[in-house]
């Protein structure tokens, strides 16, 4: 369906990534946010608090991130599209409720504007060191989707994708920004509402007596009812059967947890968003994401000026990890170079997927600034040998 025009600020704007993310959420149909202030993400909810009363929605500032991350899920079951926004320390507090959303299949979006860590770390400076936490931070086996924008325009566009994926697969989607992308200001074009595709909630139309809250058909994604619809359904974070009733047996656990994984894995080709440049028989492929991809772009250009054969692969979808594409490239390339604002997270995935077919070189950075292109270039030169 098309976006509700009331939430869409059509036009050409000069916005930072945080504000663009908020506009993306509004365009996607988000009418509820619960938040707790934390640098460098707060601008997203500040704008939402200003905008949403005029389009028919609610913002509530909660007492902490534990509350924010579950209040939004209450709102989802009450019928709203909802999200929360945070940064590292708050993201840590939200982990339990990312697990709850995964387990109860509550469609929602968690925005993490990454800053330097661990702990309070660097509140005003960038990092990309929450990438593994986004994937594995809550306990147990589960799957999420994580998207990584590298510009304010993408903060708008991909926030809509994040909401759409969350509704399509009934899964929490991590929107992994970073301080630089959040605070850089660039041109953002917001199209007319009738050019924005939004995925509506997968609501059931079944008669009450036929509805199984966690029963699924082909794609492994159950249909949803909202509180007050008359279905008198039960939702629990305990291991549950198709009725949504607790059923703590190994068989039920196996069936449920495997479905939570497979509903995402089976659709990985549709979920995988990549930006590729000159990947045909290059010696080196630079794999990057988020703000680092923009620094990597310069490093790739410098390497080409020196006659090196370098391609570029940008991960827009970081989770589920696009390992099939890395595997394909590993067959034709000598080495991967992976710059990221952490001491080695996504590079492990690249190395795992390459499986020894191509060498993998990390370009670690502890955060607080972005790489210098020369630092990436140095590793590209080394990898080309």
């Amino acid at each position, binding site marked *: 369906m098309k976006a*509700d025009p009331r939430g869409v600020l059509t036009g050409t704007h000069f916005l930072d990534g945080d504000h663009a993310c908020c506009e993306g959420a509004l365009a996607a149909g988000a009418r509820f946010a619960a938040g707790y202030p934390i640098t460098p993400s707060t601008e997203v909810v500040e704008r939402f608090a200003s905008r949403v009363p005029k389009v028919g929605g609610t913002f509530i500032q*909660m007492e902490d991130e534990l509350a924010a991350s*579950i*209040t939004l899920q209450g709102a989802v079951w*009450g019928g709203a599209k909802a999200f929360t926004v945070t940064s590292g320390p708050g993201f840590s507090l939200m982990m339990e409720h990312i697990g709850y959303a995964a387990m109860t299949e509550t469609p929602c979006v968690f925005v993490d504007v990454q800053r330097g860590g661990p702990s309070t770390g660097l509140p005003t400076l960038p990092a990309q060191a929450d990438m593994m936490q986004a994937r594995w931070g809550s306990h147990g086996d589960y799957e999420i989707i994580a998207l990584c924008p590298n510009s304010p325009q993408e903060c708008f566009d991909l926030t809509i994708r994040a909401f759409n994926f969350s509704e399509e697969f009934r899964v929490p989607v991590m929107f992994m920004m970073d301080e630089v992308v959040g605070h850089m200001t660039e041109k953002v074009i917001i199209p007319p509402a009738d050019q924005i595709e939004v995925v509506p*909630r997968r609501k059931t139309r079944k008669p009450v007596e036929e509805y199984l809250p966690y029963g699924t058909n082909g794609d492994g994604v159950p249909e949803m009812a909202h*509180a*007050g619809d008359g279905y008198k359904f039960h*939702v*629990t974070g305990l291991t549950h059967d198709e009725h949504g009733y607790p059923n703590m047996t190994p068989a039920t656990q196996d069936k449920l947890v495997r479905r939570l994984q497979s509903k995402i894995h089976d659709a990985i080709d549709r979920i995988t968003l990549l930006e590729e440049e000159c990947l045909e028989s290059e010696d080196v492929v630079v794999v990057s994401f988020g703000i680092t991809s923009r620094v990597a772009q310069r490093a790739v250009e410098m390497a080409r000026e020196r006659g090196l054969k370098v391609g570029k692969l940008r991960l827009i979808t970081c989770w589920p990890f696009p390992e099939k594409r890395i595997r394909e490239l590993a067959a034709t390339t000598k080495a991967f170079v992976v710059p990221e604002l952490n001491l080695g997270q996504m590079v492990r995935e690249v190395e795992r997927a390459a499986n020894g077919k191509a060498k993998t070189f990390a370009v670690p950075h502890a955060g607080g600034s972005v790489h210098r292109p020369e630092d990436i270039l140095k590793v590209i030169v080394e990898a080309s040998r």
Partner: protein
Amino acid sequence: MSILDVTNPVEPFLRTDRMPHIWCPGCGIGTTVNCFARALIESKIDLQSIALVSGIGCTGRVAGYVKLDSFHTTHGRAIPFATGLKLANPKLNVVVYSGDGDLSAIGGNHLIHAARRNIDLKVICVNNLIYAMTGGQTAPTTPGHAITSTSPYGTCEPAFNLPHLVEAAGAVYVARWTTFHVKQLARSIGEAFQKKGFSFIEVISPCPTLYQRRNKLGDGLDTMKYYKEKSKVKHGAPTSEVGLTMTGEIIVGKFVDRDRPDYQSLLHAQMVESLGECYVEPSETVCSCS
């Protein structure tokens, strides 16, 4: 009509396909559920409009046994979940049904802030003075000197007086009963449904398996006798004076019944004042569904 056709009047409120329940013999939680169901029958509220939210623990399991839209959430977070539910769909009557440890320890911060905001929630707090589901550890509500599995020599911490806490934080309706006071409890729950704002009903309830046994306080029946003999009804009692001890008097009754605007009324008034005609009611745009 044969005698076999007689059904319990609360049966339609229960997920009978989930029986038997997990609660121990002598436990008071089932009694509170019975009172809750009777209050619903009495008040004739449309059951479709009720959503019940629980946290984790023995009382947290209530959500799984009532035939209502029901949410068994995470430990301590029933109130913020319920807050989101109520704000997204103000037409819902949202009940939070959970235990003392869940609501006042791990969820204590949410309890006081929801009372401060005066979110229109009906909170039923079953207080068995202990963490029962995990085997009987000290809770913030455990009376001084009581033996628990984590205070084997007796607890030394002062206990929370929950009615005092929630009154101070801003609740509009505060009552306490024991599981002996079934009629009064059902009536209080009915009254809470008539209130707009944060209502809190504490129900003192036995845990014969862990609390009573370790403290040599007898079984479920002995506890009923204690509740009967030592309870004193004092409506309007100052909540500062209703703290509990292990074997002393239990002050019960309706302590607070006052009116102040609930969160959504305040939000509405503020937005209308600031935005005038530009304000769009949130309820008008609950997610347009397929």
